Every structure is written in C-alpha cells, then in structure tokens.
C-alpha cells in the first residue's frame, strides 16, 4: 500500500498518502496552540462512580474519533471496491442500536437487569446490520445501481425502521455494566471505545496482511473487467465489502447506544456519513475507487474528530457543523481533482517559463 521503494526520506514523505492527514493534523494543532493552548490540557479526575477518568479535549477526540475510525475502515473498503460511498451508515447505526436495545430489553421497555447477555445481543444486532449492508450490497453489486442512490433508500427509511423496531418507544437500560462499552471500564482512565477501535485496527491489519482481501478490493475498484478476466468475482467482492461495513456499523451502534444507555432515533449518529466520507477523502483515497490506504483513512477519522472538537470549542452549534465540514470536503475534492491539478501545474509551468524569459 505504501510505496515499496523509498529513494529518500523526504521524497518518500512527499509522495506518501499520509502526508495530507498529517499536514491537516499539524495545521489544526498549530491553530489550537496559537488560539488557546489549554486545548491540550488533560486532567485526571474521577467520575460519578469513583473511577479514575482522564478528561480534556484530546481525550474527547480519542473517544469520539474511535467510532468514526471504525466506520472509516468499512467505508474505505466500500469506496475502494465500488467507487461510491455508503450514505446510509448513520441510519444503519440507528437500526443496529435499536435492535440491540430491543434484544437487551426483551419484553419490558425499562428493565432493571439485562434480559440477554450483551454478547448475544451484539451478535443479533451485528446480523441485522449485516442484512442492511447486504441489502445495499445486493443493489450495488447485482443490480448495478450507483452506490449512493442505492444507499439513499436506507438513508431515508433507516431511521423509520429503527423507530419501528422499538414501536417508537425509547427503552432505557439501567444496568451499569452496559455503559462500559461507550464509557470507561472500572479502573482504566482511557475511554473504552479507543480499545475497541484498537481491536478493530488489529483485526483489519491482520486481514489485510494475511489475506488477499485488500488486493482483490483494489483490483475490482481499479478495473472491474480486468479483475473478472483474472478470475475474481467482482460482484461477490462488492457484496462482501458492504457486509463488512455492516459489521463496522454494528460496532459503532454498540458504542453509541452504550454511551447513552438509550437511543434517539432522529439524532443518533446524525451526519456521521459525512464524517466517514470526509475521513476517507482526507486520507487521500480516491473517492472514485481503486487504491486505498487504510492507515491514512483511520488517521483521517481522528483528524476529522479533531476538527469537530475544535469547532465545538468555538461554540459552533452541532447542527451548523455540517456547513463547515461541507466546505472542507469541497476543498479536498477540488484539490484532488485531476483537472484542477493539471490547471495548477500548467499555471506553474507558465510562471516558470515567464520568469525564465524575463
């Protein structure tokens, strides 16, 4: 994924995909250092249960960036294989969370104890999210509908389905151990989502390292016909990546629901599809498919959360955040557009020729 030959450190760095997210990270860091260095302050305190917890903006970034990073893993694969993005992830999280709560609560809406072990509930919610992913995947792979139009169906209907799963009730879980997944484990001051994300990274790394999934996905994304001639089954691979994204969505759903111990169908994971796409774009991956760099996407996700947290710090309303991010997206895609790059380089050439003539 990263270039094999490294002629020199500097040129290797310049041509590395990680350059964009790292540059963005540095930019944000410097900006925050200048405006308000207290942004980087981390304090150790205790929460209401008497557990030690770290708090501070950086911890928030690690905390909330983790779920985004998990989502970015799936989104990167989907982008690479199908050349489009899944915009139903937010709605998917709502469905997954709703199913999870439904299974955990059983027949009551406010149980004192969990009716089912979290593990079993998670498996069921994972299956549901995978079915949602399979629905998207089938439309994209077998019916050849553009990914974003195909996922637009669930994008609209998903939250309605999520509300329908729980009869539009808002179940609340009072069991303490359920909050561990989105909060803190007793005695460990670092938020749990970070560890879940680390686990996901490890699994992804192992899969990409020891199986051909990454290679196949890129092959299908670069040229579907050629990959078919080489004995791959592009439909199956596209279908599979959407199911994989379903798994990522389920993990996110678990974290999201665990944070609140309840769910709000219209607000949960709102606008997260934009963040996930941004993470992929910021990682320097082509949004039209083909080669990808998983590490860059993951780093991109944390940078996006950095941006979000910075904006929050300046009292930007959560509903208004999307406007700023949209501008960032447009800037990123414009900068990576081949036409734009060509124009810029021809401009440089003309300038150089002009200065040489003078």
């Amino acid at each position, binding site marked *: 994924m990263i270039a094999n030959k490294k002629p020199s450190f500097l040129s290797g760095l310049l041509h590395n995909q990680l350059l964009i997210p790292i540059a963005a990270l540095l930019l944000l860091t410097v900006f925050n250092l200048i405006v308000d260095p207290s942004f980087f302050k981390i304090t150790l305190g205790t929460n209401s249960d008497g557990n030690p917890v770290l708090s501070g903006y950086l911890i928030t970034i690690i905390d909330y960036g983790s779920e985004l990073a998990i989502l970015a893993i799936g989104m990167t694969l989907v982008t690479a294989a199908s050349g489009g993005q899944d915009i139903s992830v937010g709605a998917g999280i709502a469905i997954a969370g709703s199913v999870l709560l439904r299974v955990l609560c059983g027949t009551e809406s406010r149980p004192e104890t969990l009716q089912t072990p979290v593990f079993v509930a998670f498996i069921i919610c994972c299956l549901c999210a995978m079915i949602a992913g399979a629905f998207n995947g089938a439309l994209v792979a077998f019916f050849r509908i553009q990914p974003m139009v195909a996922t637009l169906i669930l994008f609209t209907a998903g939250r309605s389905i999520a509300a329908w799963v729980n009869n539009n009730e808002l179940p609340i879980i009072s069991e303490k151990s359920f909050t561990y997944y989105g909060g803190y484990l007793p005695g460990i001051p670092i938020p749990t989502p970070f560890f879940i994300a680390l686990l996901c990274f490890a699994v992804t790394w192992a899969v990409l390292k020891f199986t051909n999934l990454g290679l196949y996905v890129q092959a299908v994304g670069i040229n579907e016909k050629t990959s078919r001639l080489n004995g791959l089954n592009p439909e199956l691979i596209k279908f599979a990546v959407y199911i994989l994204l379903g798994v990522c969505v389920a993990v996110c759903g678990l974290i999201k629901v665990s944070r609140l111990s309840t769910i709000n169908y219209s607000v949960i994971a709102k606008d997260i599809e934009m963040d996930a796409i941004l993470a992929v774009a910021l990682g320097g991956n082509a949004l039209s498919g083909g080669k990808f760099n998983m590490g860059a996407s993951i780093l991109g996700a944390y940078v996006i959360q950095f941006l979000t947290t910075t904006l929050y710090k300046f009292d930007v309303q959560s509903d208004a955040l999307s406007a700023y991010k949209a501008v960032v997206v447009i800037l990123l895609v*414009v900068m990576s557009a081949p036409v734009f790059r060509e124009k810029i380089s021809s401009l440089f050439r003309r300038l150089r020729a002009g200065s040489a003539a003078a």
Partner: protein
Amino acid sequence: MSNSGSNRGGLGGRLRKMTDTNLLMSITIIVFIVMYLGAIIFLQKGFLKPQTLFNIMNANAALIIMSCGMTLVMITGGIDISVGGVAALVSMSCAVYLDYHGGNIIGAILISLAIGLAFGLVQGYLVAYLEIQPFIVTLAGMFFARGMTTIVHTNPFNVQNEAFVKLKDARIIVPFLGSVNKHGVYVDAYVEIGVIVALLIVAALYIFLKWGKTGRSFYAVGGNRQSALMLGINVKRVTFLSHLLCGILAGIGGFVYFMHVGSGSASHAMGAEMNAIASSIIGGTMLTGGVGNIIGTLFGVMSLALIQTIVSSVGLDQAWWTGITIAAMLCLFLVVQSIIIARRKKANASAQR
C-alpha cells in the same frame, strides 16, 4: 439510446416500438389512474371530490418543481441531492428576511432565486468543469445548506409578515369543480399559487426538452458523452446548465414550499431530495442518463403523494410508514430499471452478433 416521440405508426406498432421511457411513463400513469380509481371505490368517498386531488397538488407543488430540476440533471446523467437542503435554506432565509428585516415579497423571491442560482453555479462548475463526481459535490451542498440554515436562524418560527400571509392564503378558485360539504353548503374547489407555478414550469420544461435545441442536447449528453462530443455538443456547458437549472428550480421550489408552510425551519423539506429522485425514477427517468420525461416526473410526484395519502387514510398513519413506503417504491422501480437496462444490453449484444 433512442429518444421518445420518434415513433410513428399504428397503435400496435407504437406499442411494440415503444421506448423504455414511454413504457415506464405509461406504467406510472396507468398505476396512478388505477390507484386513484381504487381509492375512490374502496376508501372513503372523499377521493371522488376534485378537491382531494387539488389538495395533493397543493401539498406537493414544491416537490413537483424540485423533481423537474432533478429530472433535468438526471437526464444528463448526473444527480443533485442538495435540493431539499436548498429549499430549507430558502425558506429560512426568506422567513428571517420578511420578519426580522421588514422585507417585502419581491425581495424574498429575489433571495430565493439568488440562493438557488448560487448553488447551481458552484455545483455546476465543480461537476462540469472540474469533473468531480456530482454525488460528492451535491452531498456536500446538502450538508452545507442544512448547516447554513441553522446558522441563519436556529429555531423554527411562523412568519407574521402581513403581505406574505395574504400571499400564502391566496386561493385560486377552480370553477365548476366545487362540492357540497356535510352542512349542505357549496364550497369552491381551489388550488394555491404554487400549483400554477409548478404547472407552468412543467409546461415550459416539456417544450424545452422536446423541441429546444439545448433540450435535445441534454438527452445526447446523458445518452453518450463521447458521441455527444463528436456531434459538436459542448458537453461541459450542457452539464453545467443542467445543474444551474436544477439549482434555480430548487430555489423556486423552496419559495413555493415556503408559501405553502409559511414558516422557516431547519428541518423543512427533510428528505425532499429522496422524494424528488424517487419521483423522477418512477416517472421513467433513468439513473444512467439519456432517458426521461417531465410529464412522467409530474405523474411520479402525484403517484408518490397519492400512495402517501392512501397509506395514511388506511390507518397506517405513524410517521415511519411514509418513509418506508417511498423507499420500498423507489427500490422496486430501481430494480425494474436495472432489469430493463440489462435486457437492453443483452438485446444490443445479440443484435451486433
């Protein structure tokens, strides 16, 4: 891809030679009529009153306008999912302008046109001249518009401006179609101004697409960019124009929406982009481009609205049913389209052999 309206001959020949878009459009029109007849027979007699139809039109005039813009973009092979966001931004901006800055109606209309034009210009430029995927550009446009709506004003509110309220409550009486209500009093049937605007736009775009030179080139670009280029059509300009028109129509649609609801809110026109896309697709516009029809789109919107009306009058009036029905219907038509495309590809391949 073959165009509509080029077939001449007897009825039988016409049926056999019918292009896919005409076929899809006919299916939609027939489905619409059958559904309406079914509703008249099996549901309350309310559907017999012309006013029920007019009410559906009143509520969906804005959607008709937005769907027309969407159809234009989809004919050239693109897509625009920012229309709902633009409509929300327009309604909020107009509301704030009218109530907090003592604005007048003309100014509000100019604002909505300007917002639509701005979105159309920027998105059109990015898609046509910088060759960025239309989906990414307009997705960003959608989020930008929704975010901007909150920045313009946070809380939803009803507009009190007198001139506007007068305009909002203006009714155009449709002669001879009124009905007698349960107290035995004759009530005139009416439509809102928005419906007239929508129908005018539909008529204008129908003429534009059917007989206009630029309109025909929309189909050429959507059908095959390469061939269109070789025919000497300025492909980039046509793509740009389609997004520009869609943006302006979204602005007008936003104002019509605003006239219907009379309030500004960040959650206005939520999911309108989905409805517009669904209407276009149901009306026979293909996602792949090159095929589409404005009249079909009109019936697409009406079919969707009718289904919603039927669903709610059957008693499934919980909010989620609307979303699920539309999604199911869109899904169905998408699959039908994809099968038609596959069939045509196969037919082409066997014809070449």
